[in-house]
């Protein structure tokens, strides 16, 4: 610390004294300071020095410079598109952002430089945007991301030819090692497995479970022996993961064991005449079945061998043990097995459960299995059933929404559309799952579906003639889903203003509805603007 500051800190009452000279040209000025006023001497010397230092500031020599961003390969979007994107990135109508980024990718355009920090922040907040963003960021954005650890997800792969995957696998952090493992698994599944086998014993349980997960890609019977051994791992997480993988591996010994166990529990009695899909469904819904009968007989106690194969003993709240074991067992057997085994179509088999006390357990197990096996025929039949029927049991009523969501998600878009299209009626609006079904459809909706939706909306408003019902609420609450999901081709039609006539009684509600309609129109307009602005 310098003498002047020391003097000031101590105070003249405690012996602080301004130095007479500091060895700079200031000394000439310091010499003129009043000798009889030590405080003033310190103050003026400090003031003079502060001005002297301000005037004498020099820049420092800097370190090495980073390489500039590589040249862009794509043109930027138009300034008008940039402005719209700026609003979206800052949270205004952000639900349109994925579509806007998709348009950018189709048009082969990138975000302009001034939007990059906002775009990187958006991708850091919302993981789902990252894939589209990586493209839209362009070379500049990927370069920028290398300066901020939070933005690492977007950083271009560092140009390091010397660092091989094997070196990362041996020396990297857990996350890096898993990434390397996944990468190698993609190119050479056997090599990835050999890597893992070599280090298996010395890794921590969490890592072992995550590493097994990395094998899901490119899984084959070559992996079976290793996974089978992992069923006896000391970690529950690893055991469960190994069982999951083996169950999903067609032809594995575990899959066969599970199928046989399930087969032994199901009893099917074919009916005199197998009906059509609709009749079968009707029977299932009404419980008046004549097309065959399916029943189940889950065990009273849990065989340890089942547990070793991944069956969890303790049921979730609200579900009995036996039902839970049966659900898990059915969930790993591809449902096509049952259609073949019992020589009956999915709707018929679903209908045949109508009289079983285990009906909903069977239906949940199959639903999980259909999703797991991505069996669209089963998923479509199960979706219709779960959508229209109402479980008496609270557990299944509560599960219905997520089951329906998963089933819909595993249908091909056209099938999903067709299934939900049936619900676009005034009667359909009273179904408690109506809105969820709409929300679960892949976007954008098909043209037919979009047109049916708009027709329902317009007709409902027209027919209501100012007399609104609970259905009106349901319908208008779905506008926020439709606004981002409607097929682009119907946007001009969707944009028409829809005045709601007064009903005179429920004004506050009318106000909410009007706001919903305005918001809907605004989102539609924005989507149209984006389409006009972002084009190749």
């Amino acid at each position, binding site marked *: 610390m310098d003498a*002047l*500051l020391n003097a*000031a*800190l*101590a*105070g*003249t*009452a*405690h012996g*602080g004294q301004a130095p007479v000279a500091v060895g700079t040209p200031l000394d000439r000025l310091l010499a003129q300071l009043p000798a009889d*006023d*030590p*405080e*003033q001497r*310190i*103050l*003026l*010397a*400090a*003031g*003079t*020095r*502060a*001005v002297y*230092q*301000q*005037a*004498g*500031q*020099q*820049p*420092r*020599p*800097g*370190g090495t*410079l*980073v*390489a*500039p*961003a590589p040249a862009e390969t794509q043109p930027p979007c138009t*300034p*008008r598109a940039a*402005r719209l994107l700026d*609003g979206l990135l800052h949270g*205004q109508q952000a639900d349109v952002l994925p579509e806007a980024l998709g348009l950018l990718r189709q048009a082969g355009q990138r975000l302009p*430089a*001034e939007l*990059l*920090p906002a775009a*990187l922040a958006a991708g850091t907040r919302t993981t789902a945007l990252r894939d589209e963003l990586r493209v839209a960021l362009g070379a*500049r*954005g990927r*370069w*920028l991301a290398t*300066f*901020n650890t939070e933005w690492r997800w977007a950083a271009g792969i560092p140009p390091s030819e010397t660092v091989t995957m094997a070196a990362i696998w041996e020396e990297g952090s857990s996350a890096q090692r898993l990434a390397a493992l996944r990468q190698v698994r993609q190119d050479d599944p056997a090599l990835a497995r050999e890597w893992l086998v070599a280090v298996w014993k010395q890794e921590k349980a969490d890592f072992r479970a995550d590493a097994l997960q990395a094998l899901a890609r490119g899984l084959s019977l070559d992996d079976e022996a290793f996974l089978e051994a992992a069923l006896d791992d000391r970690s529950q997480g690893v055991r469960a993961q190994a069982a999951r993988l083996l169950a999903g591996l067609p032809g594995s010994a575990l899959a066969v064991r599970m199928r046989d166990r399930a087969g032994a529990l199901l009893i099917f009695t074919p009916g005199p005449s197998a009906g059509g899909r609709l009749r079968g469904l009707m029977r299932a819904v009404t419980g008046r079945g004549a097309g065959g009968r399916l029943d189940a007989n889950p065990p009273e106690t849990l065989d340890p061998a089942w547990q070793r194969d991944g069956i969890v003993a303790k049921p979730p709240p609200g579900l009995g043990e036996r039902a839970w074991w049966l659900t898990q067992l059915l969930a790993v057997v591809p449902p096509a097995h049952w259609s073949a085994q019992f020589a009956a179509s999915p709707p018929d088999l679903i209908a045949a459960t109508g009289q079983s006390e285990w009906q909903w357990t069977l239906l949940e197990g199959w639903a999980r299995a259909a999703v797991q096996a991505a069996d669209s025929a089963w998923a479509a039949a199960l979706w219709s059933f779960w959508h229209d029927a109402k479980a008496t049991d609270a557990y299944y009523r509560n599960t219905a929404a997520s089951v329906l969501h998963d089933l819909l998600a595993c249908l091909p878009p056209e099938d999903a559309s067709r299934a939900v299209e049936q619900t676009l009626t005034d009667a359909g609006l009273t179904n408690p799952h109506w809105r969820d079904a709409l929300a679960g459809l892949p976007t954008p909706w098909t043209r037919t579906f979009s047109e049916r939706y708009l027709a329902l909306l317009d007709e409902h408003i027209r027919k209501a003639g100012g007399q609104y019902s609970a259905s009106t609420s349901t319908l208008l609450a779905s506008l926020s889903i439709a606004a981002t999901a409607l097929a682009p081709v119907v946007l001009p039609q969707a944009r028409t203003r829809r005045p709601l006539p007064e009903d005179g009684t429920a004004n506050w509600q009318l106000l909410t509805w009007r706001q919903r309609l305005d918001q809907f129109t*605004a989102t539609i*307009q924005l989507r149209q*603007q984006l389409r006009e602005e972002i084009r190749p």
Partner: protein
Amino acid sequence: MLRLTAEQVLALAPDGAAAAAGRKLGAATPWRDLGCNDAALWGECQGSALYQVRVDLADLAVKCSCPSRKVPCKHSLGLLLLAATTPGAFAGSEPPEWVSDWLARRASNAARREAAPAKSAPDAQVAKPAAKARQADRRLARVTAGLDALDLWLHDLLRTGLASVEMQPASFWEQQAARLVDAQAPGVAARVRQLATIPNSAPDWPARLLDRLGRLALLLAAFRQLDDLPADLREDVRGAIGWTLNQEEVIARGETVTGEWLVLGQRVTEEDRLRAQRTWLASAHDGRPALIMQYAIGSAPFPNMLLPGTRLSADLTYWPGAAPQRALVRQRHGGPEPIKAPLPGAPNLAALLDQVAAATARQPWLDRFLGVLNAVLPARTESGWFVHDHTGNVLPLAAGDHWRLLALSGGQPVDLAAEWDGETLAPLGVLADSAYFPLTEAG
């Protein structure tokens, strides 16, 4: 016709909600009878009622018939945005009566203001010169007494030692500042109030505090010798202590410079309900800086609309002083245009600091400077944010995030405008790819 970008229009918005609403109205749909001529833009907007919106292109003054208290309101923003993005929507035509009347009223108000000082000033001088002189003497006496008391207080502080202030409450400084306000020395009061923020603010706070106290002591010493100082420096000392000049006095005593000015950046600070706006301008011709300070109460607009990123042709009058910095916009000639050309800046960091040294030598109480730099590289390192020049030197950037600056440069040299406070550069705006991007929040 309007020559602004949409970003610049949106920067005019008083808040985010108005900007969002304005953006929605920036499409042709809700508008009718859009028109323009050399002086103005106008149109009628169909909202919950039909609103008449007009813009004076000379200074971007707006007027809308809607009841909103925001200036500019969302309709005005929408009209400006539409003009910026879709100029084709405006037909050149004769303004309707509601536009021409408004323009005429504005013109006559302006003329009255110009004429007013010429009429009233001689009257005042003739009427009560004696009273005014008495009033000035009284104030001088009060200020002198107040500053003498401050001098004693400073001496006490140095006698006890600066180490003692670490534990002092805020009132220790506040009381002293309040006494200086009573003594009609608001400039010194503000300096004392700033001192309160220093203790414990950084590891080297004692050195900072001593610097500030020293400069304050220099100001008091200068005031005691006011009559011996050169006339222009006398103005600076009086200004620093708190004597203010009204617009007529500035115009009468300051230097007026006519030219093209670049509006480089703006900061708004708010204290109680008073908003203070600092706008840095630089002459497009030689880079001479000018600082425009404006004040507004609550959400009222600032009287003079200065849009960062634009270039305007205007007469500026500087406050008198040894190194004039603060200025007022006396007269505009024509509407603003976006900045596109390279900035008139220092070629490297050392040259910038030379400019600072030269100004400090003329006026030692200056503590903020406009720094305009050509071809510098912003950089993010593990030890913080810097700018590099081509000679290999660096200066640190002010605390905060400078990601937009880095994104806009992409590792290539850019022209940068910043505020230099003696230690760090606080970016005001950057010219990249022939477009100027303001880097401060809009006021």
